[in-house]
């Protein structure tokens, strides 16, 4: 039996659809109430977790496979996994967002940036030879510029509707984000056939 940690929410929905397409009985996934763990056909054992926790479970070998966004993978310090497949679901992008006047800002101080992703933000501005002050927010990052705490934000942008509703826009895209299938290295040595079988099924369904 393969153990999978699945990121709750958007990715969970898209992945449920993928599992349906490749022939798994997804009723247990749809009908789950508050269960944190669900079995499918005695083949898959799926646990539902927040994105950073998915990585922790893979890191400790608690699950064989994690389904998680590349945004979280880029931000996380753990890199010692196999990233077998790009699932090409839940696509969006990282961007610097602010008011349209951002590029004309003249400040006597470092720019302030609000984000949930300080590591990615730091690397991005370093690559631009720019020194900024990063403020980590946990919730709606857009509040940063709206309440006047920061000059801009770095966040993932899907539709851009929250930005628009608050008068903000994309200043520059940083990198594309997609959902990845990652795998614990040791578990790959012991369950390679099962894991690659799932990878093959998903790949085939993608090319349809």
């Amino acid at each position, binding site marked *: 039996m393969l153990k999978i940690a699945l990121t709750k929410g958007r990715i969970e929905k898209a992945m449920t659809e993928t599992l349906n397409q490749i022939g798994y009985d997804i009723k247990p996934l749809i009908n789950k109430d508050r269960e944190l763990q669900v079995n499918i056909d005695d083949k898959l054992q799926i646990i539902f977790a927040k994105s950073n926790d998915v990585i*922790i479970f893979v*890191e*400790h*070998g608690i699950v064989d496979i994690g389904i998680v966004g590349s945004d979280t993978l880029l931000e996380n*310090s*753990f890199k*010692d*996994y*196999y*990233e*077998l*497949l*790009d699932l090409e679901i839940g696509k969006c992008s990282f961007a610097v967002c602010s008011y349209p006047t951002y590029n004309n800002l003249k400040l006597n101080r470092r720019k302030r940036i609000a984000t949930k992703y300080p590591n990615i933000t730091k690397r991005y501005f370093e690559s631009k030879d720019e020194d900024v002050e990063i403020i980590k927010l946990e919730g709606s990052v857009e509040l940063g510029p709206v309440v006047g705490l920061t000059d801009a934000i770095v966040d993932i942008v899907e539709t851009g509707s929250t930005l628009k509703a608050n008068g903000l826009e994309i200043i520059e895209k940083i990198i594309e984000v997609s959902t990845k299938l990652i*795998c*614990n*290295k*040791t*578990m*790959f*040595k*012991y369950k*390679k056939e099962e894991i*690659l079988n799932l*990878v093959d099924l998903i*790949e085939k369904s993608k090319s349809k």
Partner: protein
Amino acid sequence: MELYKFAIPEESNEVIVENVYKLRKYEEMLRNLFYQENYIETLMPTFEYVELYKSVYKNLDESTLFKFVDKEGKDIALRWDFTVPLARYYISQKKEDIARYCYFGKVYRKEKEHRGKNSEIYQIGIELIGKKAIEGDVECISILKKSLSTFELKDLKIELGSASFYNRLCELVGIDKKDEFSNLLTQKNISGLKKFCDKYNIEENLSTFIVSLPRLNGNIDVLKQTINNINDKELQNSLIELKDLYETMNMKEQDLFDLACVPNMEYYTGIIFKVYSKYVEKPIISGGRYDKLYENFGKKIPAIGMAYYMDNILKAVTKVGEINAKNSLN
């Protein structure tokens, strides 16, 4: 300040009761084996110059070092590994004979906090200096094989990879793309390797082979098939070397080959190996041939070595114990 009476720092690792007993037992068995094979025990210093490590590990993440400033104002760090200090020691002897060293002790590497990781890591290992492939490889692997029964762990898998195979792949792909290629290969990134081949218009046969590499991680059959399927002589030869080693060493059906193996240190040149247990998420032993390490000290000396990660071994043994206890209750 009351807290400090009862807690240990997050960096610390403590081993208690039965685990100390087991650790000492394994240590004793390994020491006997190493002594029998004429390995001399060494006790390396706790502090080394940061510059020593930086000169060898060009991409060393310095945030993993426990650093201090010594009384001369130089940066020193807690011992980060044994291989580099032992290389320094060997060079300081000003001999060029074959040397066999073994060591038992801790290395100190800062880990990120709250991830269930320790920063003091108990390692046991050997270094065989001055003995070339294949002779040296055979000696090292045969000691490895003799040692495995120490741990009473079933289902262990030895995995072999080849740095020369990897180096040739990098040449074929183009040295200018080495970093990008290596990152994808390390991750066995099937989708990423596909995009990589498309992006650089890599010739069809080669690109098909590159994309298949993540799957080529299996037993001797995988290796034999690949040897038959590839045309490049250099690639083929490096795999034949692995096959010969497998046969000479009488390795087992469950042992693995990883053709997407990327050396995690720049100085690896020949075979790379790891030992896995399904009861712990990280390898319990790793090693390889590093004929380039001594170039950092201005010498050309072949060497091979391996390290046993005792914490991972204890974790696996403890896990097996817990499973057995559970089963005997049912």
